[in-house]
């Protein structure tokens, strides 16, 4: 994209005060297939789009269990993501061994961020080319963090990374105010809708996406393909017509003001831009 004389190595500042190598690493994240995360007070959901190199190969694993109470979804250089997941698992195991209690997610993301920062300040290293959505629990409930290759981390109510993530973000921005009090199943439903947004009209099936949940009383687990397909069918999320179908059924069943309100909201969803 940018061709200039200050982007050769990570230890060179540009006159404008930028580290181009770090910014290029963030570009790598944008090229990866989409991953989204969202949370309520008690649960956090991570979902991602599965991209296979060819019809002959299997899908890449983009969601990793780090511990019973923490999971991570990655976008970008999946090899870097795998290595960082191994680091996170190792940190959780060592903390558990020493303190006989789960590593607080807030501590883990700081350690991860510090590890990423090191690679932005050594001439013999390169930044990690992967963005991590870390979802987990601590004493105060469920949390979702995003760790950048730059070494920054942010906490989010909901977020999306990777290619075509803007469509998902638009959907999440409209819905996020309801998330803190959402039920576990509603959260998963919203995750599936957000994933659908990134597919740009492609049919949403369980072979195209992976969904995982962690919550109070529920250890981090990746939902099975059959479970996800059943949820997609239940919420009728596969095609674009889905919201209208759902609201039509409700209007037929209800026929009062509440149903009309929901019908109006559904019409709004239909109008939501599918193309960025």
């Amino acid at each position, binding site marked *: 994209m940018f061709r200039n004389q200050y982007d050769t190595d990570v230890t060179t500042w540009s006159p404008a005060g930028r580290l181009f190598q770090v910014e290029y690493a963030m570009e790598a994240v944008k090229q990866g297939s989409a991953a989204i995360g969202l949370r309520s007070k008690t649960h956090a959901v991570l979902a991602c789009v599965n991209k296979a190199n060819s019809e002959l190969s299997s899908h890449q694993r983009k969601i990793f*269990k780090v511990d019973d109470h923490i999971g991570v979804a990655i976008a970008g250089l999946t090899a870097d993501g795998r290595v960082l997941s*191994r680091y996170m*698992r*190792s940190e959780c*195991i*060592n903390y*558990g*061994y020493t303190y006989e209690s789960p590593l607080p997610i807030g501590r883990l993301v700081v350690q991860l961020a510090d590890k990423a920062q090191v690679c932005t300040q050594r001439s013999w290293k390169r930044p990690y080319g992967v963005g991590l959505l870390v979802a987990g629990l601590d004493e105060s409930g469920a949390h979702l963090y995003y760790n950048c290759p730059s070494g920054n981390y942010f906490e989010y109510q909901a977020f999306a990374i990777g290619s075509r993530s803007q469509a998902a973000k638009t959907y999440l921005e409209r819905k996020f105010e309801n998330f803190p009090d959402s039920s576990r199943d509603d959260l998963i439903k919203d995750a599936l809708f957000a994933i659908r947004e990134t597919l740009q009209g492609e049919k949403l099936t369980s072979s195209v996406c992976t969904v995982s949940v962690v919550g109070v009383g529920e250890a981090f687990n990746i939902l099975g393909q059959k479970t996800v397909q059943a949820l997609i069918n239940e919420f009728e999320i596969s095609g674009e017509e889905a919201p209208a179908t759902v609201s039509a059924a409700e209007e037929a069943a209800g026929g009062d003001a509440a149903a009309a309100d929901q019908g109006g909201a559904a019409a709004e969803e239909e109008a939501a831009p599918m193309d960025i």
Partner: protein
Amino acid sequence: MTTKEHANWSPYDNNGGTCVAIAGADYCVIAADTRMSTGYSILTRDYSKISKLADKSFMASSGFQADVKALQKVLSSRHLIYQHQHNKQMSCPAMAQLLSNTLYYKRFFPYYAFNVLGGLDSEGKGCVFTYDAVGSYERVGYSAQGSGATLITPFLDNQLKSPSPLLLPAKDAVTPLSEAEAVDLVKTCFVSATERDIYTGDSVEIIILNANGVRRESEQLRKD
């Protein structure tokens, strides 16, 4: 003759107690008393010497309980790593090898732990592995370790008719007894050992592992 200097402090202590495990055709019984002692005193009457290492592997250890606790933690962490790498639980024979390696790792400052590992192998048959303090181990049909082992082992030899491991072809030492009979036998072992071994008593904790899952039983023993 030169006199040797003796240490006025030892890193080890013996907390006593007895552990037993018996393998059946489709079950495994692992048991240990719950008395923890030091010298001629009792520290507590209610201490568990049994630890779940994996879904199908339970370890009972007598000896120095601080070392036992450290050993349990190391194995627990190693099992977590295994699960992350292989996406499944460790089998009992795999855990048996891991325990052996972990013990030998400290060959020159050993864990003062006398272990008996019980569980189900990948075919669902009961398996028992018995160890010394530095990791030498063998798969057997039954075993006892700890302060009451010398009292219990001859009795089990008599009752379980173990074929000699020197016979070829190797005969399966798994007992033909039913699960209920094996549990009863274990209770008898502990009641008898409690009579004569001062370090065994208070109560016995029994874990029964079979295809349906895990069951825990407890039986009171003499408290003197």
